[in-house]
């Protein structure tokens, strides 16, 4: 179950790329150059990168909304410049500029987004049902945060997935906060994955700051599902360094999160930890790491240049009315 050197390099590269996209989104939102809102992912990107790097073409996915699923888009090689265009209301956006912030790349198994936390639990059952029936060893990846598991539909999805032994991965990125809601107040147990026991579902609790531990968990969980053994609950303990979404105060309950708390969390920054690991184990040299970072910056800059060059999407009312239904 240990990762190959190749896998580790790919994972590392994807983390750096995802981090770079997140940084530019953050900057743009702060300077009023982004539509809608943005939920910054700094400190929280390892789980999404890990899962989606390990995933295969053909797998269905709904990534957690931290960093708007860009960890997934980057790692599944989706045409991310079209997401940048979408988020800036441009023609060529992945949703034709109609959604403000929905990511959709159906050719890569990412079908939808939603403003409703936990909306994904419902169709995740259907993706799992289809995957099982298709017989092509696909998985249905259902990403969510600690908050999303408050939804009743999460229960239904877990119940039905386990009943039918569907290849659904319940991937809980637990950062301990749902906007201001402290997970300690909102969940009766410390581990949200303790829910899985109630369904006879296997579960793991993973250090969500450790990119490679997340990836190993993904390997194990996905294999279990692909072999027809049923769903798996993977809980990643993670955190976020910024507020829930840019512009909203960074509170826990009604108390501002302290600088000390954030500083301590930054000690275990996933990029920091992953860089140390690849250097210590001789997976990558410092030169190679610098190159990866430079390439990531260039990739992100090129894609933003493309998105910025697109005209704003402003179809007529008639054109929009004609787009409500498929032919």
């Amino acid at each position: 179950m240990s990762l190959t050197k190749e896998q580790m390099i790919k994972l590392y590269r994807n983390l750096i790329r995802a981090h770079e996209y997140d940084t530019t989104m953050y900057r743009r939102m702060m300077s009023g150059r982004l539509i809608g809102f943005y939920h910054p992912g700094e400190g929280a990107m390892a789980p999404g990168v890990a899962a989606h790097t390990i995933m295969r073409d053909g797998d269905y996915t709904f990534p957690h909304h931290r960093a708007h699923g860009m960890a997934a888009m980057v790692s599944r090689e989706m045409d991310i410049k079209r997401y940048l265009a979408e988020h800036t209301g441009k023609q060529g956006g992945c949703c034709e500029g109609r959604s403000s912030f929905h990511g959709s790349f159906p050719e890569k198994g990412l079908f939808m987004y939603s403003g409703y936390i936990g909306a994904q639990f419902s169709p995740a059952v259907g993706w799992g049902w289809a995957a099982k029936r298709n017989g092509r060893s696909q998985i249905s990846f259902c990403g969510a945060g600690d908050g999303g598991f408050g939804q009743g539909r999460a229960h239904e999805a877990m119940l039905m997935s386990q009943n039918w032994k569907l290849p659904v991965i319940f991937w809980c990125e637990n950062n301990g906060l749902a906007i201001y809601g402290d997970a300690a107040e909102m969940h009766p147990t410390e581990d949200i994955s303790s829910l899985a026991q109630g369904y006879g579902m296997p579960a793991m609790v993973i250090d969500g700051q450790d990119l490679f531990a997340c990836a190993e968990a993904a390997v194990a969980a996905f294999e279990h599902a692909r072999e027809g053994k049923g769903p798996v609950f993977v809980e990643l303990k993670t955190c976020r360094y910024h507020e829930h979404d840019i512009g909203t105060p960074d509170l826990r309950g009604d108390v501002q999160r302290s600088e000390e708390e954030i500083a301590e969390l930054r000690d275990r920054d996933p990029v920091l930890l992953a860089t140390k690991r690849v250097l210590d184990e001789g997976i990558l040299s410092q030169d190679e790491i610098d190159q990866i970072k430079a390439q990531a910056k260039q990739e992100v800059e090129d894609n933003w240049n493309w998105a910025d060059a697109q005209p704003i999407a402003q179809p007529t009312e008639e054109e929009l009315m004609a787009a409500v239904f498929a032919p």
Partner: protein
Amino acid sequence: MREITLINAVKEAYIEEMERDESVFMVGQDLRGGIFNHTKGLYEQFGDRIVDTPISESGMYGTAFGAAQTGEYRPIVDFMFAGFSMVTFSEVSVTTGQQYFLHGGKTPMPIVITAAMGTGGRLANDHAMSVMGAYLRQPGIKVAFASCPADAKGLMKAAIRENNPVFIPFHMGLQSEVGPVPDGDHVVPLGVADVKREGSDVTVLASGMQTKFSLMAAEKLKGEFSVEVVDPRTLDPFDMPLLLKSLEKTNRLVIVDEDWENSGFASTISARVVEEGFDLLDAPIRRVCFPNMPIPGGYMEPYIMPNADKIEAAIRDVCA
């Protein structure tokens, strides 16, 4: 022409469409045993394409919705009673209607939502409510409703072949209604209304059981008023040209809807007729709907709900 019950006409549609297209499957609760006649025996023929779930409406609907999103399946979701679909309202209404449009028109959603629906059986609100308004309200969903076996079969076939979400319940009280159904691949296209009875004094627009009640009222009033009964068959997209053509002849309109009066089908069509056919009207439009109260049970349903007597009164009113 052979005559069969409405519920068996729907069953024929299911069998023919599932034989025709392997990607069609059905998900609901107690389908294998069959609460209503139209799913009895389907499991024997179609096996694991008939899927029973726990009482988990959002997961049940999600099975269909997610499968449809993958582009490889055409699901039929059966809620048993239409009112139960309200348990998963955000899924059936909001998420369903917006999927195709908001996500760039790349994921057509060929999903059929069905159930028994209808007032008059003394089952009270949750089992009896007409939820037409809820589905009509949300853009991105088509809505159809049959008043006779031939239309029940034809509309269901059209709905299954449609590449968009269609809400198409069947009326509880019409299950055993017997009527002629053509042989062969009988499809009634969505968006086409039908004149069920020709007349010249007044147009009564009515669907489901209310079409039957309107025909009863029309027959009773024969000799006194010549009543044209128009069955929308599809409530959205609605066949306005056919209605306007009828009004060119009659100049008077009564709209009957078993749904609540508030913000329902009757209100929308009234407003549109005023906008698009004002000059055709010789009298104000009358709507006959369920009053804005939860549906009472007991022995109250039959006289509170729209019925032949209320339709007759409305006809007299606009013809006065």
